[in-house]
């Protein structure tokens, strides 16, 4: 019984861990970190076109990434240093919140939906886009909307809001379908293309991005009545109002000057069509004065 005592000790240690003293809450840890290292660590998604993705030369690129590069510039001004370098850390829907919460990344610039449950853990910037959940399907499948998926297989990316609203919608409408959990958008399209799943449900703009990068884009379509109406925003850790002020300042100034609309038009419009009334109103509202 040589290992019994040590194993019990390990259990005791695990339980004792709960009595660790919680240190006092420190505000603006991210800003201090940025000031010390002169580096902004940006969490980005590798396959969330057009918001954040690896481009042809495997460099981070996209609408959210470009906005965050501007945040780095604004930070240099705010902190009165010559330059704030940027360091990019890839995140997935499942890792992004823990990595913000544990301070590995200062800001997440991807396509994260602002949700109350998430606000328990992280804070969100002003919205940079609006999001509606739709279905990515093969054109030849005949699937038009959620009810067509009865008895079919639905791919959902783990850790996305779609994971929750789709399950809720299926339950509410008494539709039975099998759920296939995939890791990221990058795995959603192959699942539909290979007929492992009949639909991949996520934000319609993202799905548009997925289709555009497909080897045969003509085989796929994004269909259905919107399953959700959500805001896409950047995430920072709790108690980082200093950093959040800089980020929101960048968004407000760009919105006021019309540059934000330009960036949106350049990056997002090719996937989602020209700026719609809701998004135009959002940007107008966010352009708050100095």
């Amino acid at each position, binding site marked *: 019984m040589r290992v019994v005592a040590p194993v019990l000790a390990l259990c005791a240690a695990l339980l004792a861990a*709960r009595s660790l003293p*919680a240190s*006092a809450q420190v505000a603006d840890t991210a800003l201090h970190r940025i000031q010390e290292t002169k580096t902004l660590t940006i969490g980005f998604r590798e396959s969330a076109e057009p918001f954040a993705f690896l481009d042809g030369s495997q460099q981070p690129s996209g609408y959210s990434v470009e906005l965050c590069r501007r945040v780095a510039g604004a930070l240099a001004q705010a902190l009165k240093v010559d330059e704030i370098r940027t360091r990019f850390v890839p995140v997935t829907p499942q890792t992004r919140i823990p990595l913000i919460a544990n301070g590995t990344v200062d800001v997440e610039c991807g396509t994260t939906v602002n949700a109350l449950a998430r606000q328990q853990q992280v804070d969100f910037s002003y919205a940079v886009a609006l999001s509606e959940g739709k279905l990515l399907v093969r054109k030849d499948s005949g699937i038009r909307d959620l009810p067509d998926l009865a008895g079919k297989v639905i791919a959902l990316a783990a850790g996305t809001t779609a994971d929750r609203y789709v399950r809720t919608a299926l339950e509410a409408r008494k539709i039975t379908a099998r759920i296939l959990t*995939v890791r990221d958008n990058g795995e959603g399209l192959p699942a539909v293309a*290979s007929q*492992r799943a009949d639909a991949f449900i996520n934000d319609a703009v993202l799905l548009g991005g997925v289709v555009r990068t497909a080897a045969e884009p003509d085989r796929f379509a994004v269909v259905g009545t919107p399953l959700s109406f959500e805001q896409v925003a950047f995430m920072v850790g709790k108690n980082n109002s200093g950093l959040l002020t800089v980020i929101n300042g960048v968004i407000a100034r760009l919105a006021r000057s019309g540059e934000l609309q330009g960036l949106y038009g350049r990056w997002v419009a090719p996937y989602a069509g020209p700026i719609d009334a809701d998004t135009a109103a959002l940007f107008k509202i966010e352009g708050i004065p100095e």
Partner: protein
Amino acid sequence: MNYAWDWSLVLREPYAGWLVAGVAWTLALSAAGWALALILALPVALSRVLGSPAIRGLSGFYVSVFRNIPLILQMFVWFFVVPELLPRDLGLWVKRDMPQPEFTTAVVALGMYTSGRLAELFRSGIDAVPRGQVSAALACGLTRAQAYQYVILPQAFRIILAPLTSEFLSIVKNSSIALTIGVLELTAESRQIEDMTFHGFEAFGAATLIYVVIAFGLDRMAARLRPSALAART
């Protein structure tokens, strides 16, 4: 560190239920993969010892393929590649209509991978039995097959019983890799709890504790199955 501990969380619904389901999937994956591995490993090991040079080469290749490619990649190959190489209808069946596609694929991947390791273990067990025993059995009038069945294999089996339990512990741990193709086993469930509640310490802590308990049980079993312990009982 600022963290609000809540260990009762892992005992509350729905999370307690998730952990139980995760353990069930982990054990089911391990048991089914183990059964497949045992069925495949014995013929491979025997053909490596007894087969003609060509057969020996073939079974050697089998073992080296399954041992020299990371399990996670083997999992991907069974999941993403193999169905595409099958005839269209069969591939579709594998992807959609066979019972529990992700689970079944994971069992095949785990079983094949483990069969390579077990075949090597069986072979080392057979090698550990002195060669003279085969000659002695043959001299006594047994056929070669009988010599292996009644003389060599029972002894070899005894020798490898203890390492066999540690191989079973390996398959329990390796089953966690099935989370990469969407099987919600224990590690994935703890991940999911972390995702929903943001209480990673408690979620990972609970999973760790469960793995430790499983390993502890197997460790006790292995101690009883060591040749010395077996000899003491007979």
